[in-house]
């Protein structure tokens, strides 16, 4: 018996300490959760009243215990707008009876913002997403892809063609004449003499219509031509022989090439090749 009374005393002490720890947060800032525990309210069981968009406070019943003829509640509340509110105004009876006999349970939601600093906007109802138009979207994407492809294929090429037309390359005749003049004057460097030889080869290659022929075959064919062959052999004697059999009169040799024009490079009849 004595042990049972000791256990009861311990239980009472624990209950007492629990009661002593009950939270009683009657002030909180807007939007923050606060708790009111062990609140005894008379009458039948209460529940939060249905809220609307305009309700300034959200109330939740966390726990309910019988307390004699009354009931004891743990509440959680969140103020949505600054001001003092009676929590009982946000409760209704589960059995639907009136709540006129409840005492005031005042809480206060304070604002950390200055007054009128912020006004929440009205929530605009969102228009539902379009559920149709997929086909149109596919067609539009296809057209865009096609245009992109055409741009890749043709825009760059047109640009390159423009560049080609802008840059005008000197003709073979334009390059040949100054080299001939330099050689005749006697102030041509070795590189210029070598280029002259190559351009004269090109000249006769074009004239004898040998441009499509293999380079080695072309040179053999050029040497077989009476005029071109004589020119090349004299050039070779002048440029390549260590001891030419006779001095070469370069001025006389190159005289026909001092006034060559682009037309001079036109092919002549193949009958000239002997």
């Amino acid at each position, binding site marked *: 018996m004595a042990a049972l009374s000791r256990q009861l005393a311990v239980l009472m002490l624990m209950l007492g300490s629990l009661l002593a720890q009950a939270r009683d947060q009657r002030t909180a800032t807007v939007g923050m959760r606060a708790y009111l525990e062990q609140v005894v309210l008379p009458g039948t069981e209460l529940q939060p009243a249905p809220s609307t968009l305009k309700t300034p406070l959200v109330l939740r019943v966390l726990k309910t215990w019988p307390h004699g003829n009354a009931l004891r509640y743990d509440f959680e509340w969140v103020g949505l707008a600054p001001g003092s509110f009676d929590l009982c105004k946000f409760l209704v009876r589960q059995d639907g009876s009136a709540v006129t006999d409840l005492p005031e349970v005042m809480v206060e939601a304070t604002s950390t913002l200055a007054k009128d600093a912020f006004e929440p906007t009205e929530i605009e109802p969102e228009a539902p997403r379009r559920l149709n138009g997929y086909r149109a979207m596919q067609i539009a994407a296809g057209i865009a892809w096609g245009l992109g492809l055409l741009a890749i294929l043709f825009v760059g090429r047109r640009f390159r063609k423009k560049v080609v037309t802008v840059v005008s390359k000197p003709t073979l005749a334009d390059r040949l004449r100054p080299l001939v003049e330099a050689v005749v004057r006697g102030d041509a460097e070795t590189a210029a003499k070598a280029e002259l*030889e190559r351009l004269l080869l*090109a000249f006769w290659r074009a004239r004898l219509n040998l441009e499509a022929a293999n*380079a*080695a075959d072309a040179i053999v064919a050029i*040497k077989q031509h009476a005029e071109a062959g004589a020119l090349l052999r004299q050039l070779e004697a002048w440029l*390549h*022989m*260590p001891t030419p059999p006779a001095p070469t009169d370069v001025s006389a040799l190159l005289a026909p090439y001092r006034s060559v024009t682009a037309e001079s490079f036109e092919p002549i009849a193949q009958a000239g090749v002997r």
Partner: protein
Amino acid sequence: MTSLKAIAAPRFTETRQFLDTIRTRVGKVVVGQDVVVERLLIALMTSGHLLLQGVPGLAKTLLVAAVSKTVDLAFARIQFTIDLLPSDIVGSEILDQKTHEFRTHKGPIFTNLLLADEINRAAPKVQSALLEAMQERRVTIGNQTYALPAPFLVIATQNPVEQAGTFELPEAQLDRFMLLHRLGYLTTEQEKEVLRRNAALGVRRDGKGAVARTEFDVLGEQATGSSDQLVRAMEDVQQVHVSEAFLEHTVEIVNRTRKHPKLNLGCSPRAGISLVKASRARALIHGRDYVLPEDLFALAEDVILHRIRLSYEAVADGYTSQQVLQEILSEVAR
């Protein structure tokens, strides 16, 4: 019109006779391969190595054997296969059972004229061993280094058709070959002449039996030229005049291969050196003591083609190396 005879250099008469003898002797057994004989002589006189590319049956081996027998040079042939080892070429040290000492066994590379048949069939390490010897003209067996005989010339062949199970020679190794000549088929008349000659070969008695004679039996064992004459020819090549204008042409062609948009890889400086060397030898063969642009154009394909590599775009557009080289040679003269 001045003929080639008229401008022929009289001081090279002996060498020209020597070269004519080789050509006549080779011409007796090999039909219609004048250009390849010329390339072989160029390689021989410039100590450059030659790679012959062609399908089997174009008388590559016969040609090399004919030249070696004509000039009295030692000749060896190695058939390259996948299981060939470097020691099969350069030699190895073997333990002498009698003396219990290591003895050096020199490989077939110790010869004057080496025919490396189907070089691309051997593994890369074997190719490297040969190409190293080609470059340095000496080989190391064990701890001892041996100089290769002089002259030393490698004539390698590769078949462009059968590529299965082959190891393509990399660019650096291809560059060691001064010339890569592509052998073509004979003309109809030449082919008929081959058949006529073959039909007249007859049989060779061997003991109590007999075997059908081949073109190799026609090759006389008696050499008509000597290695001294070859040395003289090699010295004469060095006397061939190279003008400054010719060097300008050579550098222009080599540079253009390096800048051409259709090429990923252009010519190395070794290509320019080879062009000049080969042109000097060609000039001598044609009876001149000076080089001409025609030598350059005639040899460009054999010297340059294996040293250039097409770009991916050019390959995709269907270009070949020959086309691009002809483009370069045409542009040089434009």
